[in-house]
């Protein structure tokens, strides 16, 4: 099972760190609908995140989009495992 988990993580890192560079940059369904319905212009930012819109401010190259993807995958795994270990019960 450990090998399979590593394989899934490798695929996830590939998706987030590389394939995401080729993702469509058109507005998504919610934003597109919001343009027509007129609610999207109300959007504001209340909490400045460290990597807004999956990019690192100040870095111009592809690394600016690649690094947030990689960091996000690793943090997601780590956070879930951290919480899950505390919630779950020890196996016999």
């Amino acid at each position, binding site marked *: *099972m*450990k090998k*399979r*988990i590593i*394989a*899934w*993580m490798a695929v*996830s*890192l590939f*998706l*987030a760190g590389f*394939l*995401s560079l080729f*993702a*469509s*940059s*058109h*507005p*998504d*369904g*919610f934003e*597109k*609908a919001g343009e*027509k*319905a*007129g*609610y*999207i212009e*109300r*959007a*504001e*930012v*209340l*909490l400045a*995140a*460290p*990597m*807004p*819109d*999956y990019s690192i401010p100040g870095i111009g190259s592809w690394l600016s989009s690649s690094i*947030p*993807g990689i*960091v*996000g*995958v690793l*943090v*997601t*795994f*780590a*956070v*879930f*495992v951290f*919480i*899950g*270990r505390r*919630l*779950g*019960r*020890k*196996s016999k």
Partner: protein
Amino acid sequence: MHIPDGILDPKVWVSAAAVTGAVLYKSVKYSQRTLEHRAVPVMGAMAAFIFAAQMINFPLLGAAASGHLIGAAVCAILFGFWPSTLIMSTVVIIQAVMFQDGGITALGANILNMAIVAPAAAALTHKLMQKLSLPGSVSAIVSGWVSVVTVAAVGALELALSGVVSLQLAMSTLLFWHGFIGIGEGLITAVVLQFAIRSSFAFAAKEMAS
């Protein structure tokens, strides 16, 4: 389907956060009873995979718009409803806090939509498909589609209750785009599930939960 700050009315996002809090409390109670330590890394890898897959916006043919996976149907079919709420919540919270994808006041609503309503819709649809003894791939596609369209409808309701748009306009525009995005969700769900089943993810989680 990540709602930013500034759009939802306080009474809407506060109520959504309250419902979300109550459901997640139950999820935590459920996992304290049934979640085995050994199942945690499998679910963690699925959370990481869903985070990654959500970054891949696919173009909607012929339109200047895109969509991306939610992933709740994959989760719900593999692990069931309650664990899915925790997996999806982890993803949605990290997206909001680290990447400004979805607002901080809208966080409760975004968790409600993508981490509670979406897996609930997918789990119920999947159960129905199984009762009709339809093949797994058909169930995956239909469950994926239903989960996205249901989230779009609930999102439209939240927008209308916030008074920023009429219910009819919110429903028609959101359901129009998400009707197409749901097809992508359904197809990706079917493919990802094939691989996950081959990795015996569901088996692993269930085996460990018993």
